[in-house]
């Protein structure tokens, strides 16, 4: 039976089309996956379903009733719960309170009786607290019960968010990136947990995640969004092998590559790369005298607040080399660049650049040594003109470079030198960012997501620029979503997965062996379910949902008995469910 029916949903933000003609059906009891590259509209769709934004067109029906005029809290009462990509726990409340709130928000409690502490409120309070405790135990969060939510590590916060959504007794749970920041083992645990949650709580789920291994394992059916439209849909194996999906994630394969690649039969789409404009190349192209290792990173770890994003990163860049970092979103590529350039402080390991130890040095100091970093989103000042932006870079670097040098490389910028950077097209903005970087005469240029949001032709030109940099002796470290193009220009590549480097190989080799890369992006099929069982049970530091416990907790047992049971189970390091069953057995025997 169709539980959630979406028809022709359209959302526009100003001139930007976020969703267009999206239709989707979710059946009762199903786990539906929603995947797609950045900016495909996944979170926008979530926001439409939960009522945070109103769609411009289209309809959403939940259990046969339209949600059109239902505000978010009304939708929550009808049984739609959600989690958030950027965690939205109530930080100044304890974990227990975070779970109690949705329980009694649904119950429409009375403010006056709450303030007076009347018996009615008292009982409702007890009931909410009991249920919240039961859910916390079921998710293995019992020991965090009285902590403030803001003080918890992000991984735990994500689980609390799941618990909070379940506390509402929902019929449908929208999960937005539940695996973000989890390592491979924890992701395995999560996959098992979601299946058990579906069984025990009888909920349907809509799951957005960039971690394909999770989506492919957990979901019954998958929708792929790209540029606000449904690109493809089907069961996991179908989607995994869909050429359109692979193209959307990896960039479209170049024709000569397709011939060389045995794993990709008959490309559905072939791209024609337009003739690249003749780039001004100085005849005196000579590889700078510098040789040897320019950048060396050993055992680096870094992260934000309580979240460790990358660990054990070993990475080198030789002088004049182009190196690509590839891997799924959230694999830790951007964090690696930021830790190298000093934007964030590495927590462990060593970074040396051109013989200097720059571990934990200030970013401006690192920049002066000749390491330029173009961040994701380019880091431009939208109201400054092109000329002012470039002048600023020259002044800051203190190097007597003429702006003409940059205009020679990017003639288009010469025409637009008086224009505010914010009014330029995306490709031109990227050119400004690159021009600004090369004016500081860097020895190493790090570019994060250069092609993000750009049309293929522009991307092609930009990649040719990287080739030019190489010929001029500048080393380049690239983080790129368009894997094909990145590998075409790079000498070597590192593959990131879950915050570590899992593979390092010459670019040529990777281009030939597409299976290796698409595995890291789309998740490889589980080799054997047995192995996963073992992995999940073997590292038992996470307590997964315990069916027996749920059974016991739903029985009419006095609260004191329950609590005593839970405490004893915690002491003995066993599951409360097993303990309770054992005790019941004993009682039966003695009788």
């Amino acid at each position, binding site marked *: 039976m169709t539980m959630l029916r979406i028809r022709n949903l359209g959302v526009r933000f100003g001139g930007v089309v976020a969703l267009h003609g999206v239709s989707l059906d979710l059946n009762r009891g199903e786990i539906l996956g929603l995947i797609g590259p950045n900016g495909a509209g996944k979170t926008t769709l979530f926001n439409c379903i939960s009522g945070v934004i109103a769609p411009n067109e289209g309809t959403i029906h939940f259990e046969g009733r339209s949600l059109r005029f239902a505000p978010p809290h009304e939708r929550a009462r009808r049984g739609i719960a959600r989690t958030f990509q950027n965690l939205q726990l*109530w930080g*100044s409340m304890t974990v227990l309170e975070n779970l109690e*709130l*949705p329980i009694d928000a649904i*119950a429409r409690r009375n403010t006056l009786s709450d303030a007076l502490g009347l018996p009615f409120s008292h009982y409702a309070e007890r009931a909410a607290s009991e249920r919240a405790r039961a859910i916390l135990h079921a998710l293995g969060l019992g020991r965090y019960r009285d902590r403030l939510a803001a003080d918890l590590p992000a991984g735990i916060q994500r689980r609390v968010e799941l618990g909070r959504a379940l506390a509402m007794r929902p019929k449908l749970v929208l999960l937005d990136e539940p695996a973000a920041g989890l390592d491979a083992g924890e992701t395995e645990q999560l996959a098992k947990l979601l299946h058990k949650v579906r069984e025990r709580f009888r909920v349907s789920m809509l799951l957005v995640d960039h971690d394909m291994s999770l989506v492919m394992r957990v979901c019954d059916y998958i929708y792929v969004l790209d540029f606000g439209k449904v690109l493809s849909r089907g069961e996991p194996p179908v989607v995994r092998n869909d050429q359109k999906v692979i193209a959307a994630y990896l960039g479209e394969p170049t024709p000569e590559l397709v011939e060389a690649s045995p794993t990709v039969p008959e490309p559905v789409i072939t791209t024609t790369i337009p003739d690249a404009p003749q780039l001004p190349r100085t005849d005196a192209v000579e590889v700078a005298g510098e040789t040897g290792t320019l950048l060396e990173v050993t055992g680096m770890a870094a992260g934000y607040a309580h979240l460790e994003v990358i660990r054990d990163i070993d990475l080198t860049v030789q002088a004049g080399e182009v190196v690509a970092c590839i891997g799924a979103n959230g694999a830790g590529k951007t964090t690696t660049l930021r830790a190298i350039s000093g934007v964030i402080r590495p927590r462990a390991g060593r970074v040396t650049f051109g013989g200097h130890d720059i571990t934990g040095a200030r970013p401006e100091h690192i920049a002066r040594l000749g390491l330029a970093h173009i961040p994701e989103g380019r880091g431009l000042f939208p109201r400054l003109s092109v000329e002012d932006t470039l002048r600023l870079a020259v002044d800051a670097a203190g190097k007597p470079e003429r702006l003409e040098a940059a205009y020679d490389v990017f003639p288009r910028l010469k025409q637009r030198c008086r224009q505010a950077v914010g009014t330029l097209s995306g490709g031109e903005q990227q050119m400004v960012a690159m021009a600004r970087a090369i004016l500081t005469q860097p020895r190493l240029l790090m570019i994060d997501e250069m092609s993000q949001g750009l049309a293929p032709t522009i991307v092609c030109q930009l990649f040719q620029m990287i080739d030019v940099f190489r010929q001029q002796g500048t080393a380049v470290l690239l983080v790129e979503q368009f894997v094909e193009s990145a590998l075409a220009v790079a000498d070597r590549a590192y593959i990131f997965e879950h915050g570590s480097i899992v593979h390092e190989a010459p670019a040529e080799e990777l281009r030939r062996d597409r299976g290796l890369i698409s595995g890291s992006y789309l998740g490889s099929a589980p080799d054997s379910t047995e192995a996963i069982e073992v992995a999940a049970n073997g590292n038992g530091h996470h307590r997964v949902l315990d069916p027996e416990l749920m059974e016991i907790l739903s029985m009419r047992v006095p609260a004191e008995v329950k609590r005593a049971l839970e405490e004893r189970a915690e002491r003995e390091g066993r599951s409360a469910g097993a303990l309770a069953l054992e005790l019941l057995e004993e009682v039966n025997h003695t009788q």
Partner: protein
Amino acid sequence: MMPGHIVRFAIAIVAFAILARLPVGLDPAFQFDAALAVIWGFGILSLVLLTGYAGQVSLCQATFAGVAAYGAGMTVAGMHGGYLLGIIIGVLAATVLGVIVGLPALRLHGITLAIVTLGIALVFDKYVFQDHIFDWFTGGTGGWQVTQASLFGIPVDSSKHLLTAYDVMLALFGMVAVLMVNLHQSGAGRRFRAIRDSELAASTMGVNLARYKLLAFALSASIAGMGGSFYPRIAGSVSPQPFWVFTSLQLAAIGVLMGVRYVPAAALGGLFMAVVPDVLTRYGHGTFMNRFNYDISYDWFQLAVGVLLVLQLILLPDGVWGDIRAKALRAWDVVRMKPREEVRPA
């Protein structure tokens, strides 16, 4: 009642017994300060609910108090009603204004909401409290003169029975304070706090944002109004000056200074706001060691609040009460030798 309720009730009674004794035997000027302290205590208490619990900003709490003061004055002096009726009408008037001010808060946040409420405070100060069109409400330039009043048959007029009025107000303050602590620990309080921490999460988890924001404003205005409606009685008349814009700002500043998330901070803040300026103006001038003449005026109080606020934000970010409480709790843990829990990194 839960054990927590009984404990809170007991604490309130003990606090009442102590505080009620404090001004006995002092000269009338200090007794007036004590009564004024309760009025401003209500003002800051209203901010504890609105800002501390629900996370909304308001710079017009003194306006709510002022509207209630005029409402009470009008009922008693203008319409010759009883004082109980005066309080009820005053609080109702403040509550209505609170709901009206709450309407823009459904859309606005933070600094814009602060500016809007500041505008409301300015408008009421200049064009309601001081304008002839509203003479029926404000009693004209002279204001309402409340010479005698009684509550439940007890005479509570300002000149002779100031301390009786103080006791009545203190008892009411204690009750409201206990109710507010109850609220904080209960479902409704959690909903307010959820709005403060994340409106997005609150609405998608079933909290009716419009309802609870308006409720916060209405309750807050009525609490501020409770204090304000006693003003005509203890001062003997109503004038615009105590309820002008600057008082609202001062309430907000002192609320933050003392710890806007905590109910006891309201009592501290009220005392500070009423007593310190009076002490400064009375004892602030003279000669130090027979050599140096000094003259500290009321202006110094404003300066002191500003400086203290800066120091507090650096040294005691959770307010005077909040940080002292946290330190006391930690000390108590040390005394009991309870191990500190470690947050496990991810």
